[in-house]
């Protein structure tokens, strides 16, 4: 399995990511159910932004977008500059599942380069509750990085 060929960020890129992550349905079920709307904001160098969404609904995972925060209604928004997104994804593509320094959690804990934004505490707590599933989805961008059973 090579890197996703669609350009990032784009809906085809996120669709392919989700397709890879959900290819092994048993592994997804092993991660457990989730109810979560994860907003992703990519800040471009010209000051504009692109927004996409991941929807975790039971055992189903789907991508949405391009969209807006108002239209998507995310529990949280994971926001960062395009460079940070491409570096994170590039590292996973090159090395497989993210290490602590290249994980969604590791890259957002200090508020840079990524910020996790939510309108209330329940949103940010959902980011913590479903972190394993979210990371498994992004890890699927990696070469030879199927979702690992038991990795919750």
């Amino acid at each position: 399995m090579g890197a996703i060929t669609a350009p990032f960020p784009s809906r085809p890129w996120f669709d392919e990511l989700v397709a890879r992550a959900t290819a092994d349905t048993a592994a997804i079920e092993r991660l457990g159910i989730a109810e979560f709307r994860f907003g992703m904001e990519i800040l471009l160098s010209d000051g504009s932004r692109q927004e996409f969404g991941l929807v975790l609904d039971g055992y189903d995972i789907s991508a949405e977008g391009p969209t807006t925060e108002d239209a998507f209604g995310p529990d949280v928004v994971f926001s960062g500059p395009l460079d940070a997104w491409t570096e994170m994804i590039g590292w996973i593509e090159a090395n497989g599942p993210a290490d602590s320094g290249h994980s969604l959690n590791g890259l957002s804990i200090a508020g840079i380069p990524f910020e996790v934004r939510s309108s209330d505490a329940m949103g940010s707590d959902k980011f913590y509750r479903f972190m394993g599933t979210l990371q498994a989805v992004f890890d699927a961008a990696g070469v030879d990085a199927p979702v690992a059973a038991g990795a919750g």
Partner: protein
Amino acid sequence: MSLGLDLSYLERSSRGEFDLGWLRDTKSEWGVRAVPSKTGLTMRDIFIGSYGEVPDHAPMRTMAPRGSDVEVGVPDMGYTVNDKCEVWSENVLDLYEEAVSRQWSATRDIPWGDLAPLDPDVEHAMCQLATVLSEVEMVAADFPAKWLWRINHEFVEAKMFLCTQVMDEARHTEVFRKRALANGGGLGKATAVIERFLQLILDAESYDEGSALMHLLGEGIVLSLFRAGAALSPSPVEQQIFRLCMQDEARHVAYGTMHLRYRLEKDPSMAADFHAYLDKGEEMIAMIFSTPEIVEPTAILAAGSVEAACELGAAAGDVLRLQIVGDYLKRCDHAGLDRRGRLHLPDAIIEGVPGAKSAVTV
């Protein structure tokens, strides 16, 4: 004590003379056909009709399933938590399903075979943090267990969720004990100050008080420690441990936040009581940042060595401090309890947290 053995029934039934009262005369709702949702038959799916009606005050103190036809003469079980608002939260059914679905095994799901030798100081730091976490996690099993048998069976969904928490915390205690003993180190130091904090939770005089101290405050702090641990992990082994624990802990915090919200919606006058509990409990946050056994291992894991940690100074601690206090205040806001202007924390702890003001000189 007589259990009410009916010898004459034994004789009649042996002759085929059945009573069949349970078959013909039961007064509970019949004809219920819960429809499974796409993940299976959930607790939300069966929360229907009379079976989805939870009384604000339990009419009896029995173990009879809510909605069943309860025979006259059932014994009084002596429950002391008989009001729904004392334990309920609007998300408790969903949190129970989530908890059951997202269980994991500290034996099977951690890639223990991938542990590699670490710098001795880093290994010592990891073992010290594992010691503290193995110590504090079990109180979050002890506290619900202490109260479970006092909670009326009418609120069975809340009891079931607390049972999942007991299992979660047993697993957290297990996984950190295993980590301490798995890579050439061992257990570190257990301190009196941490034990006093645990005692505060365990000795809470009411479920309200203990839940505020534990679910909202204590577990909120530990959740931030787990998040930091996952970000600072020296290997995929620790990353997986902290990530899995973080998911569990966030469920418990979500219950605590929404329970407090429900409690205050039903009885706003309780706010003064919760402020008093948290006035006392916030010393825990200050304690976290004045306990070397927590501060220093975290700094060493962040920096990679003792020397680098000393150079890094308070930077790693500041990230953790801002997250702990910031997340705590957001949860209080969501629950409907404004703590921003009356924190019982020293200025040094709340510096940089938007809107936070200390109400005391510490």
